[in-house]
């Protein structure tokens, strides 16, 4: 796994003096989906925010394609070929769909036109809603805008924080389809998911976090099959 695209090594982070994530080491290989599951407060979102540069790491390293990015501000991490989609407030509500997308290519404005065309091809619904303010879109449409914005610069790694949160059950399924489609274009995905079973089903690898540490790390299929994991984290479905 030394050819991993995204690596964290002994990553620690938190807010003020409170450390939330302890000693997190993980690898994400090109083109793979890794799903992070675990109970509320396990530090999953904080881990993602730390990798994205939104929360400053206390110690440890994060590399994308071999380049160290730990400690860089989010605006610079955004230029490293990795894009982060936060769980909440992940679109500019006052801007139109199209304007939202263009904000996604801030790092390289010359590519805006072809990138927009690519996104509209990927999400035909958005092409129709070009001039609609993002604040007036439905939850699912908004999530597509958030994805589209993150994909504008064709990142190699996508960080998704609970992409299915707040969506209707019908939309959740569509959301996972979209994640798989994006992945099909060769984008590696590290995602945090409450919806553990569905998340693990589309993932290659799974990481179980508990109390800010990596508790288990395995093939997603093994985690799904593991009795211990399903009892502790997936909720018994008998």
């Amino acid at each position, binding site marked *: 796994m030394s050819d991993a695209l995204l690596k964290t090594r002994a990553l620690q982070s938190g807010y003020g003096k409170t450390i939330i994530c302890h000693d997190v080491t993980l690898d994400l290989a090109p083109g793979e989906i890794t799903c992070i599951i675990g109970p509320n407060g396990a530090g999953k979102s904080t881990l993602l925010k730390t990798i*994205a540069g*939104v929360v400053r790491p206390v110690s440890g390293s994060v590399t994308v394609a071999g380049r160290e990015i730990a400690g860089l*501000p*989010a*605006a*610079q991490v*955004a*230029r490293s070929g990795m894009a*982060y989609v*936060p769980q909440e*407030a*992940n*679109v*500019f*509500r*006052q*801007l139109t769909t199209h*304007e939202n997308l*263009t*904000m*996604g290519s*801030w*790092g390289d*404005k010359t590519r805006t036109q072809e990138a927009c065309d690519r996104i509209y091809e990927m999400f035909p619904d958005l092409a129709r809603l070009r001039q609609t303010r993002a*604040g007036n879109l439905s939850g699912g449409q908004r999530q597509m805008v958030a994805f589209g*914005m993150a994909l504008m610069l064709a990142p190699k790694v996508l960080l998704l924080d609970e992409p299915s949160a707040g969506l209707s059950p019908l939309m959740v399924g569509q959301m996972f389809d979209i994640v798989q489609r994006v992945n099909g274009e060769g984008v590696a995905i590290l995602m945090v998911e409450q919806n553990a079973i569905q998340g693990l089903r589309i993932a290659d690898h799974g990481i179980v976090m508990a109390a800010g540490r990596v508790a288990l790390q395995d093939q997603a299929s093994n985690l799904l099959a593991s009795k211990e994991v399903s009892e502790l984290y997936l909720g018994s479905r008998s």
Partner: protein
Amino acid sequence: MIFNALVNAALIAPPAMAFSLLFGILKFPNFAIGGYITVGAFAAYTFNVPLGLPLPLAAAAAMLVTALVVWLMHVLVFQPMEEHSAITLLVVSIALTLIIENVIRLFFSADVRGFEIPLERPWKLLGARITPEQVQIIIWSLVIGVALHCLLAYTWIGRAMRAVADNPMLAAIRGVNATRITAFTTAICGALFGLTGVFAGLDLVIEPLVGWNLTIPIFAAAILGGIGSPYGAIVGALLVGLAEEATILFLPSTYKIGVGFVIIAVLLLLRPQGLFGTAEIRK
């Protein structure tokens, strides 16, 4: 009367748009705008009268100076205090206006001044007295409004300004340097306040309180239009201009400054999101 209301509106509209933009980014009502407008008026006066520049040049120079002052105040005063509550910042901004006003008083004394412009006889139109300056104010105000609209709607930096005002964290995640955009926004707003100072000097008089007296009508216009919405601010300015002129018909003109307050109070109580703003979910 309608014409006077238009002039009032033209005077208030650009700073109301600027105030709205600033509020979007800084999230507190910045009373320092009164001081900034006064800076604009006195800078234009200095370039125009003692230094003898023609007024259009002096106005441009004043806009530059005010933009610089507003940016400096942002960097020196407000940026280091980001973590304070909106109310503390509001008090600081009033203190800043007092400081600016009195620094100007130190240098210029409280005398009433005016620009050096050729006196022209006012035109008469349908019984109204119209001065060429008033017509210029209206025209320039329109030009500025259109220019600001183009900047916000069609340029990268304008979109980024709106994005940062909307969601600074997401803007950073998408690679926007929010500090730089904020600095740019403050400078643009500064230029607008500077211009308002020039207009105020043309239409009213140049004295240290000129900005403070405009502050409340500006707030009223911005709040009427829905705070954070620069276009609403234009409509707000028109309504405030009309309301102010209408009061003169019924009440002594000294009540004029109270009109802004009453508009604000009534509106906030009935429709806190402004006439055109969208309701915001309280967090």
